[in-house]
């Protein structure tokens, strides 16, 4: 009997198909937040040069530029994500996550796209596009269902790109009552902020986390080299003593370090983080590239679970200290703001939570600065003073 090559081909294809659909365990998961809100009362930012005053706004999502003003908006905190992952067996899996945020008109972005391979029981390697794991909540910033706030505190110093493409080695193990997790990563990233393009080269960092059944401790370090692109005016503004900076020849060094603690006592939890960042200035080591000694931020938050309700309170503080060494400055001065947030999370459904949240931010900036070279706008009115209220629903599926 002569074999029909076509039939054989179909048979083989069929076998391969059925084999792959058996082995490939494909999962589709997603999340969505629909949040509306507005600022209630505002301070004003005053332009020192022109005297013009503009109302203060509240930036809810720095990476996407989601900003609340006094008109009710559903954009700044509203987002979605769909994740497809497939376990190919023998420790190999692939994951892709598409997200979109109101601040970017819901345009779809690839936030994660990576291959994961379990080298053994304690070591895992991930290669591809991943979130930059700076804070406790960085990894799952978009998944508001996974935390108690409507949005994470906006007081910690942000990086210029929240993703990177590269490789991460993660290790996890446990001893008696403690679980240990550590990772190191490297790669490069990019971001756009309005008309400014930012490349983060030579991203390098690590995270260590130790936890037991009530305590989590976490420390994180990250650094990269910033290269700025844009119009000639923009690139010219990154110039000191006639030498262009933030170029691929003279990149600016960015450094970040942070520590965090999370404690659970029955129905009460307390979480706190402290972080600092600085942009190195190769031409004037006494102050960094934006004229500050760096940015610090910290918050402490607590909540109590009462059935399906979780009322919570958070205090946060952010400060950029302008360096005394700056031309025109006679003493230390801070560009600073503190925020108190009160909110309640209501788990009204097994996969959805309703959140009401009120934040009041005060301007703690020093009001003294003789700032004749156009650096940070300290003392320019109450530019940080703003109250906002939001209502929203977070869903996972």
């Amino acid at each position, binding site marked *: 009997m002569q074999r029909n090559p076509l039939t054989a081909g179909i048979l083989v294809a069929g076998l391969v198909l059925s084999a792959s659909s058996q082995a490939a365990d494909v*999962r589709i*998961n997603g*999340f969505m937040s629909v949040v509306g809100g507005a600022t209630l009362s505002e301070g004003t930012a005053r332009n020192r040069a022109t005297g013009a005053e503009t109302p203060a706004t509240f930036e809810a999502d720095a990476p996407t530029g989601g900003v609340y003003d006094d008109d009710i908006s559903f954009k700044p905190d509203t987002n979605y*994500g769909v*994740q497809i*992952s497939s*376990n190919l067996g023998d420790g190999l899996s692939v*994951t892709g*996550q598409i997200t979109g945020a109101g601040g970017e008109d819901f345009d779809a972005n690839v936030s*994660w796209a*990576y291959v*994961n391979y*379990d080298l053994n*029981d304690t070591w895992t390697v*991930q290669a591809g596009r*991943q*979130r930059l794991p700076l804070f406790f909540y960085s*990894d*799952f910033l*978009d*998944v508001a*269902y*996974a*935390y108690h706030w409507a949005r994470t505190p906006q007081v910690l110093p942000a990086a210029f790109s929240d993703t990177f493409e590269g490789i991460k080695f*993660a290790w*996890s193990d*446990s001893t008696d*009552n403690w*679980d240990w997790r550590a990772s190191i990563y490297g790669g490069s990233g990019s971001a756009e902020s309005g008309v400014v393009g930012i490349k983060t080269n030579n991203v390098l960092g690590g995270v260590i986390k130790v936890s037991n*059944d009530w305590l989590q401790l976490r420390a994180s370090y990250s650094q990269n080299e910033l290269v700025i692109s844009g119009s000639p005016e923009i690139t010219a503004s990154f110039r000191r003593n006639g030498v262009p900076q933030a170029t691929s020849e003279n990149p600016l060094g960015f450094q970040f370090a942070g520590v965090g603690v999370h404690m659970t006592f029955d129905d009460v939890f307390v979480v706190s983080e402290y972080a600092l960042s600085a942009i190195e200035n190769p031409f004037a080591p006494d102050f960094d590239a934006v004229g500050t000694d760096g940015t610090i931020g910290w918050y402490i938050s607590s909540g109590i*679970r009462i059935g*399906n309700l979780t009322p919570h309170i958070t205090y946060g503080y952010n400060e950029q200290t302008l360096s005394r060494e700056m031309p025109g400055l006679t003493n230390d001065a801070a560009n600073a703001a503190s925020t108190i947030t009160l909110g309640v999370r209501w*788990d009204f459904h*097994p*996969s959805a*939570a309703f959140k009401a949240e009120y934040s009041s931010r005060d301007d703690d900036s020093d009001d003294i600065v003789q700032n004749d070279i156009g650096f940070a706008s300290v003392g320019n009115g109450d530019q940080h003073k703003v109250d906002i209220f939001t209502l929203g629903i977070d869903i*996972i599926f």
Partner: protein
Amino acid sequence: MTNKTLKTLLAASLTSATLMGSVAAWSGVAVIVHPSNTNSFSATDISRIFLGKKKSYPDGSEAIPVDQKDGAAVRSSFVSTVLKKNDQQIKAYWAQLLFTGKGTPPKEVGASADVRQLIAENPALIGYIDSADADGTVKVVHQF
């Protein structure tokens, strides 16, 4: 009394009767493995496997946890006693891991009888069932 109120009352009494019935019949939770699994387990070992922190048994062989259906009374009891989390906390916990590539929640496989049947057939699996459903086809390694 309107017909609607009567129906509501009837439904309410039926619901409470069902709830009481299930509480009365529920004798406790047994954590079970395949009879050929000779590992000994502490509550911490079980918790680590079900939270995705351990992927193997103490003897080094692969460990695959299976969950009961969301909302099952046995599952809530297991999650609060062994994993020390409430239903909402465990959902948030897995959301954190799932969307950051650090892990996937255990497969859901229905009720106690389904879990028992699967575990009887697969030495890698570990699950929990209503103690009353435990029989010779599986091995009970922890009970509460």
